[in-house]
């Protein structure tokens, strides 16, 4: 703070006049009411000062109208103008200190003032009571510019996180996760697509929220540049808790119980039942054929034949969703031991999480163990070692999208007149008939009985993961230091995917056993020098290098046709095949960084990094496989340099530019490869082109450039703060697997000319409208707007009048909507077919009076450009109540659920014309009209996906010490929280606007996923 004062000294010098002296006394406390000892108190513009005593008291003779500056390490400084009073009590606020140190790239700690880019820190404690089972979903709505999208895939599903928009056209768009210095693989191990399938989960969801100290979000290229190519989508640094220097062993126990219930948003018609042509079925065969179509007669309570040959009343049966799904429960318990002295500290934790998901018979069990030890071997030599071991088992992940073995499809498409519980069957085996095979309820065997799916179809994945690192630091001499680190992220995963004997569409069953090994090893060495050269110039530089190798290996076997019925082992299966795959890649890097601090108010930073990519290295090693890139930035603490109005406590401006280079994500792209099938056919080996993508010629590294400007302002004794960023980010020479016509023989082609731009603003406002000793109201508001535009796709030059270039990312099962990257438009466009219309906008009907399909056109992006989060916390003594409102807008969704609802006659819109017909279409053929729309005209099903949700509501209570009495507890905290309690506003019918079935790049498609849930949780934290 010396500089700060010096500043004031000079600036105020000219206006100084002789003033009367008076004595001011007072008391300095922290916001918790405890006295602060040794607070520096200086009269502004003078060297007149004192410090507070052991009780926080001080006394100082000052001039009339003087300004007193209170400063204390770890607390925000405060300036108070002395008025008429002679007693001046001051409360200093923790946490918003301007000398706050944050962790930046490569784990280098920096003064927040020095940062030339945007960094947001979120403390792990912010999530404690309301935390989600999945750590990263808890970030939703909390940080401007961080777009968290959950998927409709159940407890073990993956999450999509995108920071500052999608910046890669076809590659990974999610941030790099770094846990205590270890890059953690977040690969989604498989997701649902147009043909169905399940989300096999990602990596980050496996961490235990209780172990996390802080999340540090490095949003832009400048922040991330030192991490290299993989950080061009931003970095989320996760710092786990450490042991501390303390007396005795600290014991902490945290327990949480959560219940989850599904929200049935299906608002389907309840007036007409199963049947066809306006009539109900009369035979069992007819009921089977019409088991899924709601084009029957008006529900009149009369007796009707159903698929099982039983006649039941022809009337609406109520919510099948509520009947089928169960209440999910999760128990989560963490026990932590911490301890340490001046030389060593440690933290040990163990946790168990046991979940039963809302989809019957599915759930997740996770066990996390962490060990973290810090040691100071000598004055100069220190180190840490940390190991995080995770064992995670997920049973029966639910399918989404297409119908086979997708219980969500089965439940959600039932006609109003069919009770899902009739699909259980009459035997003890759910969803089966007497002989143990599937109870079919409609003639299409691919639409599986949901009870069969939930209780007989089976899948399981077990993941064992170890994230470990060791880091040593040696302070060589006078600010010169060396730091070495070896880190490893490794997991093996076993999974079984079984279609049992007797499944309708696979009568003799199918089994797929698979084992994956992942390993990434990083070795890093840094040599650095930190020194204040003199009063005005400080220097902080380092150089270093890193080698990374990454391996993913798959071994598996599959087979179908079980010889012995219901004996579901690979050995009992026929038609067996084996699988073996390996992908290996590496990146070698050198890097350096220099920061010059001028008067601790102006900071100039520059970094450079050179990467060599194995994925761009060809067989003769002549290809361009390396890229050098750099960043440069400046930060100026204006409030330390010039006099600002007294309402402004702090003002900083920053400006930075950075480039990050990147290689191809996948190895082996550069040459055409042949696969050989040694078993062959009748003794003749088989071999064919294995490459599905056209090998590229002349691939070069891609470049991502970003310009960022920011402001950091605090007003009114830090009661109000503003953090504002504006950025312009552009990716050049993006490496894209571009979709090509399959008539070329290939599905895609790797090209290297793509360019995509993200321009946006991020605003965070935070303040404390009310703040006194007992009561406090904190508000935080964040707003982000990202304008994304695809500038160039496949060719260097855009031909005049040529068709717009597009790349297809995803296709809906209805085969009438696609997610494409379209030149000139925002990423992830929903491409759909319009209604054919004449010049007056009237629908063109065909000879039979049916709507006809028009052109395939872009209908909006599946990625929300705008997000807003508003969080309010009310604290009264030991209690606090907070809520978070999360809103996203500007994106669209194509709802295949609604398309199917048209096709099957479930949608309320299909009521029109059932009695009267529509135009030339007779009443009994009205299904032709709606089916002409269902899988053909996608315009009808593309809707705005805007929403406002009450994401979190949390009540937390710290039992006062007095209440703890003789109990051996240091503190007890009780929390009650709700998640996703209220969908305040949504513009989509029948589905939740956050119902996408994949966390992949192609966002904007939805189809029969696990319904969204509402969670209530109770949390108990005890410290001994």
């Amino acid at each position, binding site marked *: 703070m010396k500089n700060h004062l010096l500043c004031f000294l000079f600036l105020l010098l000219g206006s100084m006049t002789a003033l009367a002296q008076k004595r001011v006394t007072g008391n300095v406390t922290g916001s918790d009411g405890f006295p602060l000892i040794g607070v520096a108190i200086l009269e502004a513009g003078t060297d007149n000062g004192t410090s507070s005593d052991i009780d926080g008291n001080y006394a100082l003779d000052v001039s009339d109208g003087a300004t007193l500056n209170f400063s204390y390490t770890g607390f925000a400084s405060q300036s108070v103008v002395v008025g008429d009073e002679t007693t001046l009590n001051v409360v200093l606020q923790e946490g918003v200190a301007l000398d706050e140190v944050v962790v930046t790239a490569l784990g280098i700690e920096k003064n927040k003032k020095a940062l030339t880019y945007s960094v947001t820190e979120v403390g792990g404690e912010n999530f404690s009571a309301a935390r989600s089972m999945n750590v990263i979903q808890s970030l939703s709505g909390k940080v401007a510019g961080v777009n968290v999208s959950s998927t409709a895939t159940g407890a073990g599903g993956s999450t999509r996180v995108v920071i500052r928009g999608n910046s890669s056209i076809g590659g990974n768009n999610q941030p790099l996760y770094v846990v205590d210095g270890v890059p953690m693989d977040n690969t989604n191990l498989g997701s649902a697509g147009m043909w169905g399938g399940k989300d096999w989960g990602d990596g980050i969801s496996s961490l235990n929220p209780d172990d996390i100290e802080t999340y540090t979000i490095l949003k832009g290229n400048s922040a991330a540049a030192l991490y290299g190519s993989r950080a061009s989508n931003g970095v989320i640094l996760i710092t786990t808790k450490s042991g501390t220097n303390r007396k005795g062993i600290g014991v902490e126990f945290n327990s949480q119980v959560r219940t989850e219930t599904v929200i049935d948003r299906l608002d389907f018609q309840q007036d007409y039942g199963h049947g066809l042509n306006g009539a109900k079925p*009369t*035979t069992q*065969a*007819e009921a089977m*054929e*019409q088991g899924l179509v709601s084009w029957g007669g008006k529900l009149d309570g009369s007796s009707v034949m159903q698929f099982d040959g039983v006649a039941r009343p022809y009337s609406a049966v109520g919510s099948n969703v509520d009947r089928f799904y169960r209440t999910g429960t999760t128990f989560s318990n963490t026990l932590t031991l911490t301890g340490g002295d001046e030389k060593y500290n440690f933290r040990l934790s163990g946790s168990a999480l046991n979940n039963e998901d809302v989809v019957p018979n599915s759930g997740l069990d996770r066990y996390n163990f962490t060990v973290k030890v810090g040691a100071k071997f000598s004055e100069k030599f220190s180190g840490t070692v940390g190991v995080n071991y995770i064992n995670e088992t997920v049973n029966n992940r639910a399918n989404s999208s297409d119908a086979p073995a997708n219980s969500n499809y089965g439940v959600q498409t039932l006609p109003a007149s069919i009770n899902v519980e009739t699909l259980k069957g009459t035997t003890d085996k759910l969803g089966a008939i007497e002989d143990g095979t599937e109870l079919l309820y409609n*003639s299409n065997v691919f639409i599986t009985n949901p009870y069969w799916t939930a209780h007989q179809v089976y899948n399981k994945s077990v993941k064992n993961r170890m994230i470990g690192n060791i880091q040593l630091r*040696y302070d*060589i001499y006078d600010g010169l230091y*060396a730091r070495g680190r070896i880190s490893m992220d490794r997991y093996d995963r076993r999974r079984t995917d079984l279609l049992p004997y007797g499944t309708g569409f696979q*009568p*003799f069953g199918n089994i797929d056993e698979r084992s994956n090994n992942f390993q990434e090893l990083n070795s890093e*060495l840094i040599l650095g020098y930190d020194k204040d050269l003199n009063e005005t110039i400080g220097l902080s530089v380092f*150089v270093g290098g890193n080698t990374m190798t990454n391996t993913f290996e798959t071994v598996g076997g599959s087979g179908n*046709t079980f010889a012995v019925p219901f004996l579901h082992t690979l050995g009992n299966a026929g*038609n067996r*095949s084996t699988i073996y795959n*390996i992908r*290996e*890649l590496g990146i070698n890097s*050198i890097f350096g960084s220099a920061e010059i601090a001028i008067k601790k108010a102006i900071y100039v930073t520059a970094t450079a990094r050179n990467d060599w990519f*194995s994925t761009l*290295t*060809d*067989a*003769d*090693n002549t290809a361009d*496989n390396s890229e050098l890139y750099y960043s440069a930035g400046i930060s100026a603490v204006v409030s330390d340099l010039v006099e600002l109005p007294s309402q402004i406590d702090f003002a900083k401006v920053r400006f930075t530019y950075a480039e990050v280079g990147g290689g191809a994500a996948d*190895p*082996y792209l550069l040459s*055409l490869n*042949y*696969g*050989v*099938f040694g*078993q*062959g*056919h*009748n003794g*003749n080996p088989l*071999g*064919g*082109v*294995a490459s599905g993508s*056209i090998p590229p010629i002349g691939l070069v590294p891609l470049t991502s450039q970003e310009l960022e400007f920011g402001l950091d302002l605090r007003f009114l004794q830090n009661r109000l703060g503003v953090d504002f960023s504006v950025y312009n980010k552009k990716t050049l020479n993006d490496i894209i697997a*571009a979709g*090509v*016509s399959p*008539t*070329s*023989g*290939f599905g895609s*082609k790797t090209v290297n000319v793509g360019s995509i731009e993200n321009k946006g603003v991020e605003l965070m406002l935070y303040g404390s409208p009310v703040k006194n000793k007992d009561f406090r109201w904190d508000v935080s508001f964040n707003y982000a707007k990202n304008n994304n535009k695809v500038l160039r796709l496949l060719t260097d030059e855009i031909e005049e009048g*040529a068709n717009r270039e*597009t790349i297809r990312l995803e296709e809906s099962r209805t*085969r009438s909507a696609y997610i*494409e990257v379209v030149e000139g438009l925002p990423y992830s466009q929903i491409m759909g077919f319009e209604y054919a219309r004449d010049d007056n906008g009237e629908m063109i009907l065909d000879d039979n009076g049916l709507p006809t399909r028009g052109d395939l056109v872009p209908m909006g992006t599946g990625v929300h450009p705008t997000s807003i989060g508003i969080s309010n916390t009310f604290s009264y003594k030991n209690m606090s109540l907070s809520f978070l409102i999360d809103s996203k807008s500007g994106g669209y969704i194509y709802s295949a659920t609604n398309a199917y609802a048209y096709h099957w006659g479930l949608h309320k819109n299909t009521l029109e014309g059932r009695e009267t017909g529509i135009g030339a279409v007779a009443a009994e*053929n009205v299904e*032709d009209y709606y*089916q002409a729309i269902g899988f053909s005209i996608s315009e009808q099903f593309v809707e705005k996906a805007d929403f406002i949700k009450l994401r979190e509501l949390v009540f937390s209570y710290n039992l006062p010490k007095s209440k703890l009495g003789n109990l051996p507890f240091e503190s007890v905290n009780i929390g009650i929280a709700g998640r996703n309690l209220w969908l305040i506003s949504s513009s989509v019918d029948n589905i939740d606007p956050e119902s996408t079935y994949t966390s992949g790049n192609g966002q904007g498609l939805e189809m029969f996923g696990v319904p969204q849930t509402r969670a209530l949780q109770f949390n108990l934290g005890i410290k001994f």
Partner: protein
Amino acid sequence: MKFSKYILLIVALMMFQTSCDDGFDELNVNPTSSPEINPQFQFTWVQLRTSGGRYENWRAGLIYSSMMMQHFASTCGYWTGDKYTWNGGYSSSLFDRAYLEQVKDMQDLINTLETAEASDPTMLGMAKIWRVVIFHRLTDLYGDVPYSEAGKGFIEGIDNPKYDAQDAIYADMLNELESGINLLGASGGFGSGDLIYGGDTNQWKKFGYSLMLRLAMRLSEADASTAQAWTAKAIAGGVMESNADNAFIQHTSGPEGINQNGIGQVLDAAAGFGDDCPRLSNTLVDWMTSTGDGRLDIFGVTPVNGGAHNGMPNGLDETTIQANPSGTTKDDFSSFNPLLVKVSSPMVFQTYAETQLLIAEAIKRGWATGSAEDHYNNGVRGGMQQWEIYDASLAVDDATVDTYLAANPYDDTFEQIGWQYWAATFLNEYESYANWRRTGTPTLTPVNYPGNATGGTIPVRMLYGGGEIGLNPNLDEALARQGMTTDFVNMMTVPVWWDK
């Protein structure tokens, strides 16, 4: 300071040694695949893939072609073919799969053979003939298709091939057949890797000329003079002489799915693929019953519910079947014979019977010499006796054929030849459908199912994959040339070029 010197040394080493890319060239080679392939392995692969997977055999082959041809009928909602309703994915299924699974490796192999230092003309000849097998099915079903530029994404860097006009495709395919046949030598070839003839070049020659005859006759309505010239050349060259020359691939039940017959993967209940939807059409059953054709017991089995063979009328659904006088559930009707649709069944591409029937037709047209009746009779004999390759129990002796021919003598009509061709191509549904469109024989009575996409006429083409719209800029030109739009649902009535 010793320690710090050591660290400095390591940093220096890292910067100047590991910073380079040592070993990356080897790291970026896929250890599980090969940079080159033995042409024989690839030819076997292409043949097997041409036989096809479950996907397109089910959709374009069975659900559309076999049902439009009234070999089969069904009341299942998704067996849409005999009702002429629209399903884009079914319609385009061969188009969607053939280029990726057949054309890609076919072009790659031909490129390898053409650029090899030590060339093997016999191999190249077989490859060229097989390429025609692949492409004539595509153009017959879809009209103008990518041909000259297709499958060359890697070889020539063509991402979005142009669509060639069907007349140009046919002209080139006929030339390619001729050049392929001429390349066949006494030695070389793929040996046992040739799943059709085990490398027998004589049989390949006969197959090449038989295929030439098929292609030539396909042009009978669109370009008679070309058709006549190539027909003459094919017959002069020497076509198949008996069922021993038939072109088929013998499938096996394993070890993997690729070894299996794609039709078997739909209908072979014993192997776990029990799509029980199709029943024999009454068009088939009634014709065979009326002529005393013993093939009825080869093609089908009598109804589950008992009684004699009974064919299901086309165009019924589960509701309308209830008022159907000949049977009210599918089990009242004859089903397909499981022996023909095993996963280990052969997949037939062309037979002696077809060839003889085409010659009979050519003679009738005056494009060839000889006795039309003799060739017709040969065709009938071949057509009745060709099923024993599926199962020895399906063998038919000469006496049975003689009796049939005596009862149903040659009547010198195109219609009669058409019926026999239609019967001989049972389960080779792409060919059955193509020949029916060309000749209009046999006369099939269409149905007019509510909501059909053709106005109650049998569709005369299948449509491209919807994925081509907006992706391949050359599609628009092809559609305009054929008088079509992207409103594919209403395009099944637009005939292909040779279908006049």
